[in-house]
């Protein structure tokens, strides 16, 4: 506790003279961040998306059997090949697929699936199966840690949303920031940024760093006029559409941040699923397409990949309240300009269920491997002592 006390007594923490954090000092500003690096956007579908009604095995007779109330009529399904198709609300995603801008990975999960939202999300965030390893740090946070230079010229990751920053982008040193609207980045007072404490106290350093990076972000945003877009893309007025619109502005700032994260909530459809699920999928697909079109028009198309996942799929058998309960594996979408578009992985058989749930045919960590090594080009060990060869999502 000696360290904390020293921090507390280290006056003045803020002086009249503006004190810049290290990463905004003249020396740090002189070394410009890389302006052409690739960017990963993660869209998290929270609550457990019903994968079976997202990518639909329409040719399988068992589909209609298990989904008496919730089945999508075959005639309405957007056919992608002779056995699989998309829910009609995913029309915009179908267009991305047709033009080679979307890869769909089927049957994605992990061994011994957990049906707890929290446990399963923690596994996806950390890329580690054991709860003892769920320490609040995530796969992208660790990746950012491994390439972080001091002083760091930019936020390591940006979360657009009003919830908590997801563990996926939190690391030991990496500092993600969060925002939900432009006015939230405007400070009402002209404040000096606090100086660094002479402290190895973890909590004190955390607070110090968070306050400093928050003020720096506010200053940078208010100084910039570089955030306006090409103006020929219309985003849906929905929550996800507006968040991706704000995210596009942040990306156009081109500050060197390579990891962006956004969440769409509401997929925990235990009852009366039909219309709510349809609305969510439509919002997702139209927002995603607007965002990718915007990125193309802004000249960022080749630099952006979007990963979309959910913590689990849902039970194959619908429940009695026209909903679905927590299940296991599901499809993952990867969208962008520079990827091996099309179908990846084997769709789990509806004739060979495991305890009423879909089997897992692709481990999600092989997707993470591909995104880290082949897209972001960050060497990262997902789990100590085990290897996950990258799924062939990119030409290498």
């Amino acid at each position, binding site marked *: *506790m000696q360290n*904390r*006390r020293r*921090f*507390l*007594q280290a*006056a*003045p*923490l*803020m*002086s*009249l003279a503006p004190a810049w954090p290290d990463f905004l000092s003249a020396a740090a500003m002189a070394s410009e961040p890389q302006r052409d690096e690739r960017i990963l956007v993660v869209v998290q579908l*929270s609550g457990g998306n019903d994968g079976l009604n997202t990518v639909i095995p329409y040719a399988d007779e068992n589909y209609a059997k298990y989904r008496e109330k919730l089945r999508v009529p075959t005639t309405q399904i957007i056919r992608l090949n002779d056995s699989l198709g998309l829910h009609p609300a995913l029309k915009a995603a179908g267009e991305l697929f047709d033009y080679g801008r979307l890869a769909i990975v089927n049957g994605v999960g992990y061994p011994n699936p957990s*049906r*707890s*939202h*929290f*446990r399963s999300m923690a596994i996806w965030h950390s890329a580690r199966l054991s*709860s003892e390893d769920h320490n609040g740090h995530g796969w992208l946070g660790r990746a950012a840690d491994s390439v972080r230079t001091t002083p760091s010229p930019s936020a390591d990751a940006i*979360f657009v949303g*009003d*919830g*908590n*920053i997801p563990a996926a982008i939190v690391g030991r040193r990496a500092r*993600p*920031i*969060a*925002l*939900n609207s432009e006015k*939230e*980045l*405007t*400070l*009402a*007072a002209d*404040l000096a940024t*606090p100086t660094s*404490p002479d402290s190895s106290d973890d*909590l*004190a350093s*955390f*607070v*110090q760093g*968070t*306050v*400093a*990076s*928050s*003020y720096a*972000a*506010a200053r940078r945003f208010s100084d910039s006029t570089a955030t306006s877009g090409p103006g020929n893309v219309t985003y849906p007025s929905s929550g996800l559409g507006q968040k991706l619109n704000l995210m596009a502005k942040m990306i156009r700032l081109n500050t060197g941040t390579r990891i962006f994260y956004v969440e769409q*909530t509401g997929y925990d459809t*235990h*009852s009366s699923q039909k219309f709510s699920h349809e609305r969510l999928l439509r919002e997702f697909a139209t927002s995603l397409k607007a965002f990718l079109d915007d990125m193309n028009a802004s000249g960022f198309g080749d630099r952006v990949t979007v990963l979309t996942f959910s913590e689990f799929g849902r039970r194959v058998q619908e*429940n*009695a*309240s026209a*909903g679905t*309960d*927590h299940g296991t594996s599901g499809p993952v979408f990867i969208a962008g300009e520079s990827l091996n578009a099309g179908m990846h992985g084997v769709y789990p058989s509806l004739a060979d269920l495991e305890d009423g749930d879909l089997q897992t045919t692709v481990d999600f960590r092989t997707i993470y491997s591909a995104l880290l090594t082949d897209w972001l080009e960050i060497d990262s060990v997902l789990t100590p002592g085990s290897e996950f060869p990258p799924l062939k999502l990119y030409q290498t």
Partner: protein
Amino acid sequence: MTAWQPFKSTAEAKWDHRQIVHLHRRTVFGPSWAEVERDAASSAEDAVNRILTGECRTEGVPGDFEILANLIGDSATTSRNVDRLKAWWIYRCLFSPDPLQERLTLMWHNHFATSHRKVDSLNLMMAQNATLRRHCRAPFGDLLRDMMQDPALLIWLDAEANRKGHPNENLARELLELFTLGIGHYSEDDIKAAARALTGCTVRDGGFHFERSRHDADATTIFGQTAVWDPGSLADTLLKQPAVAGRLAWRLVQEFFGEGVVGEAEHNELAQQLQRSGLNIGAAVETMLHSELFFSEANIRSRVSDPMSFLIAPLRAFEMTQQPPSTLLLANWLKRMGLDLFYPPNVGGWDGGRAWLNTRTVIARTNYVAATVRGQLHYPAAPTDLKAVALNHGCRSFPQFIETLFAVNPPHVPVDDAAEAFVRLMAQPIAHLH
């Protein structure tokens, strides 16, 4: 209890302004000058007892508080405006003679995190809030049994859909995982059987209803015990599991202690006390707040200040209770600081701790302080004369006043403009710890 022996002030373990402000910030959102002076002239034991018994506030408490609060609450529920319900709760936190009750109610709102987003009824959210408050210090079983019949919680977790032959596991899973045992203390089969035990629980005409025809009366096995279950016998069995005391000890430590202060031995001892006392929450809180550990240097300034405390502390310090700011505006600021009352992010509640701080919430906190001292929380704008409040109490100087009440070093700025000096004070990183 060796680990939780009571605090006694000595030459080393001081009882001074620093400890007093710590006590008030952790438990009752923040003190006024007069309250700090009063506690400094008494023993730590008496000061803690005043908080435990709801006698800690000397000013800003209306004589007819409960009547006023109920009027405001009733008009909020009839208004159909959820923001007015949030404002009502802030009113309670700001003016209640028993602010620890509000702190504990907030803790239970986080524990049984239910969102109006799905419940969509101000009456039911208000009724749940009253249940949480009524049992906030009670033996946990009283609270749990009422919550298992709480309409808002049942709607939130799809109880209506959980019927004989067609179980819906949502309520059963969260009951075991979040409300009582914690992950790792049950099996998937226990969840399935618990869901069947809960079939028939539903909401009718805004109240709890047990629909016997939907109840699954087959014998099933829960925690190795085969029986014909109903919600009552499930609750009885759950409350006998030793894991419940462990989870409650964790919840209480999360609420009242800093990072890494309570070790495994202390945690286990607290759990044992809970177990022995029939899960008596009030008694456990009493043990914690009286303890040497609570007042230890390691526990002071060792956690991120939660939004409600950050919101209320300056209002109490500058005695804005005489001409209170708009509680509707306060509710909006609280949301921007990350605490949207009645809208927890999910059934797991708010993570709290370090998760309270990110770019958006740090800027919101600073902007909130600026809006407060510039009078922007009032219609029409009415800045408070901060210096006058300090000098009224015979304080030597304004810096001494804020140093005492916020236990941080005053900023090196001219105090001619006390309001701007205070904004800078609260923008220091340390102002986010308590």
